[in-house]
């Protein structure tokens, strides 16, 4: 089915992008599997549905183009959300390290310096 072809293409693209985009030791592949892929499944269904409705004459060219452009924007937003999560993850890691170091220093000194 066409929707399967679209979904497969989107998923393969996302996985290839994730493999190339691991940043600063943060492996984004988990976020891609848990967040991006499910949303891409929705996007694939919409893309396939829009194309089929255009073919059936339900949507005009103008409508189909507007809707497909929207789906392209959707992909961009999904990826940006993953970037946000990645930054949040690293931020939390850093803050956890700093909290642990603060505790160690204060404990060693015997009083609360920091």
């Amino acid at each position, binding site marked *: 089915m066409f929707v399967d072809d679209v979904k497969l293409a989107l998923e393969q693209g996302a996985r290839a992008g994730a493999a190339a985009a691991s940043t600063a*030791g943060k492996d984004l592949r988990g976020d891609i599997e848990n967040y991006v892929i499910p949303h891409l499944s929705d996007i694939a269904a*919409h893309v396939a549905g829009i194309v089929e409705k255009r073919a059936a004459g339900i949507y*005009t060219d103008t409508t189909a183009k507007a*809707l497909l452009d*929207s789906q392209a924007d959707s992909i961009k*937003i999904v990826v*940006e959300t993953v970037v946000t999560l990645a930054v*949040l993850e690293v931020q939390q890691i850093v803050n956890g390290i*700093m909290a642990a*170091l603060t505790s160690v220093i204060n404990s060693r000194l015997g009083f609360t310096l920091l």
Partner: protein
Amino acid sequence: MQTCVRVCAGGFALLIGACQAQWVSPYSAELHRRATDMLADVSTWEVQMRDSAGTIAADPRHPDVTAKLQKWKGDLVAMEAIELGVDPGSTSCDQVLGRLQILGSTKSSLPMTPAASSSVGAGSLFSFGNSTHLHCETLPDVFSTMNTQLNSSIPASLETCKLPWLPDSYFVSLAEARASSGAPGAPRPKTQMVGAAGGESLVQATEDVQIKVAFNCRSLFLSEKKPDGSETLHGDLLSQITLDLDSIIYREGREAPLAK
């Protein structure tokens, strides 16, 4: 004022103490609430439009439809203002990610804010005491894409719901009648063509035409089938704007303080 101690240990530079990294803009309860409210409003409207497809109420020229899109534009302006107030800086988060180096693998310093990332370098230290933190811009395109939706994509696609046997003047009269008296407006004309002005080309509202318009319009608001047999949450028309709102809600939800 925060005190920070710069410590060099084992080739790394660490910034510790009362300083906390805050690359992502802080949680905004107001933004979270507004995005959630707008998502609920969009979802409700989608159901209403699905049910009224093929009627005057779903025609994009109807005052209620134009008013709804105007309301959402206003909501978007308010959310953008909140976002700008909370997150006035500058660097895209993907650029921040590109510069971050996890401790232990490199000798690069770890910037505390994106603003400091411009001086990342091996062994460099950062000074800060500046209480104004700049954050990296998360979801940099979300408001522009929502603007595009409300100003361009949705209006263009809603032409599918236009009743071709009714002239624009009918809806102008409807809006004027409402504005002057608060009454619901003129009753819906039946199948005969209404007199057109300005060279509008009208279609006779035969039963076939009416059925086709209703079917095509409703298609914008119906869920799509997914390969696993489940259905998408929204129809083609509103799937993108609801995803945008979902992304904001998801981001704010991740940053929300834990309930005590």
